[in-house]
């Protein structure tokens, strides 16, 4: 099976400290891959390698390959701005721009010039908000400040903002950890719908969530990728003792 993103022998160093050890993992297209593991295991660092959000960290050093559609994203010829338009990101805390709802979604298409005229932009905004399941709630107040939405609505707005540039992959770094159960349920539903169009990678601390929404799960521990496989299989018959210990709640 061809992977959308294929990570090969990734080693990541923050200065002297090594954060990831020889990680190789394939992320299948049109599927949700969940990254699980105890805090500080390297799963967020791994996620941030996939769209080079780690670039801003000083003294960062990286070995290995991250292939997106067969092309190494760490190749010097790759423009990181272009890369991020293909690999979008949703963060732990909702972080809308302090502008209107409309402008939040329109920002990505604007900087990448993805539309011809105003009506085309309107369409992109409506389509993205509809996909993010937010359109019905905000269609009458698109010019209202985005920061006045509730936490769950803000996070769905951030998802709409990410899909407005039509990326191939969406990375989510614990997108529900700041939300209440009802908002979380909405986002999970949304993730399941988005899977058909995008390749999703989600970091989560919530094992039930990983089991509910992902098709593939990868378990990280102290910088090592311990085990990866079909979600059902990994949760019912883990091969490694550490995976077994983590998913049964013995540590982590």
């Amino acid at each position, binding site marked *: 099976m061809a992977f959308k993103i294929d990570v090969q022998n990734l080693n990541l160093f923050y200065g002297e400290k090594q954060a990831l050890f020889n990680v190789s993992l394939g992320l299948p297209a049109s599927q949700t891959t969940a990254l699980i593991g105890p805090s500080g295991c390297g799963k967020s660092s791994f996620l941030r390698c996939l769209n080079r959000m780690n670039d801003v960290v000083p003294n960062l050093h990286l070995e290995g390959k991250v292939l997106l559609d067969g092309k190494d994203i760490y190749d010097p010829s790759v423009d990181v701005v272009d890369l991020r338009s293909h690999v979008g990101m949703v963060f732990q805390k909702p972080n809308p721009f*302090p502008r209107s709802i409309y402008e939040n979604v329109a920002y990505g298409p604007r900087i990448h010039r993805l539309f011809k005229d105003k009506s085309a932009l309107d369409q992109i905004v409506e389509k993205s908000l509809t996909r993010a399941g937010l359109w019905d709630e905000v269609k009458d107040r698109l010019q209202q400040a985005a920061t006045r939405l509730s936490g769950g609505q803000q996070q769905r707005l951030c998802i709409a903002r990410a899909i407005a540039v039509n990326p191939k992959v969406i990375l989510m770094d614990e997108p529900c950890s700041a939300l209440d159960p009802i908002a979380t349920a909405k986002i999970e539903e949304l993730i399941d719908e988005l899977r058909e169009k995008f390749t999703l990678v989600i970091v989560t601390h919530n094992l039930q969530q990983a089991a509910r929404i992902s098709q593939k799960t990868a378990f990280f521990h102290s910088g090592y990728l311990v085990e990866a496989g079909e979600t059902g299989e990994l949760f019912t018959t883990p091969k490694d003792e550490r995976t077994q210990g983590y998913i049964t709640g013995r540590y982590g």
Partner: protein
Amino acid sequence: MTSNLRKRHRQEKWFQRMGLFSLCLALLFLGIIFGKILITGLPAFFKTEIEAKSAPQHLLNPYAQYVDQGKWTAASDAVDMYYKNGYPGTLSPQDSQSIEALKSQNKIRLSFNGAFFTHSDSSAPEMAGIWGALLGSLLTLLITFLTAFPIGIGAAIYLEEFAPKNSHIYWIEATINNLAAVPSILFGLLGLLAFIHFIGLPRPSALVGGLTLGLMSLPVIVVTTRASLSAVPFALKEAALGLGATPLQVLFHHVIPSALPGITTGVILSLARALGETAPLLMIGMVAFIATPPSSFLDPATVLPVQIFNWSRSPEMGFVENTSGAILVLLLILGLLNGLALFIRKKFETHHGF
């Protein structure tokens, strides 16, 4: 346990009362200062006039006789002082009597002293005004703004957003922070050396004054701008970077708009400080007696606080109220600038939901 709790509550009450007391004390002193300046300064905005025909020549203002030929003519300084404060000064008893006579016939009155706002400095207090100093302040402040604003903002943006974190940059940062605390008179010395001795710009001009005050304002602008830039949440930059914005787009689309209220406030407050500054301008010779308002940046000029300083050293009684009057005008302008800063801050504050 309960006694301990009571003690802690008592401590808190005591601490609050201490704070309230200090606040009241500060307000009291502020009230005394303002009251004194108001009482002394307000008469400067009015002048005594006499119906010219009914008064002896020597009671009229020697300058005014040539200036206004109308029915009412400005009285001399001594008459002005006597009419306003009952202070006889150099007046003879006969003069006092004739003033009292004019009073009873309603032939002497107070009217608005337009000259205080339209005239420049003069050796006669009743003819002296703040116009020249006001114009000098305006020209000087313009130069200060034009130099300190772009350079300060540029330096702050570079240091905060782009500069590599190495030891050279660290020393530059430390130096700028220290410069913000350097006594202003040292900047006057620097201005004297750099702009007058080295470059050779004309001595007491608004240009040199403005450049000197610009030097003084620079570190403050850099420090306040950096503080407002660094207060922009990293999550906001991350959001834009994650969408594929370039660092420059992140800066101009998100960071600067979010930091703008803080930056403007910092700039306005440092300009207000420059407007009230006296010491560095004394060093570069702006303390001279200047009776004609400057018509260009190179003309000899003085500024409002220096004018106040000059008048406060003059022996004539009339300059006492002139001094306080000019202080009132300066305080009014400073108050307006501070109000503007507050307004901008409230109006353009962005509310981050995170």
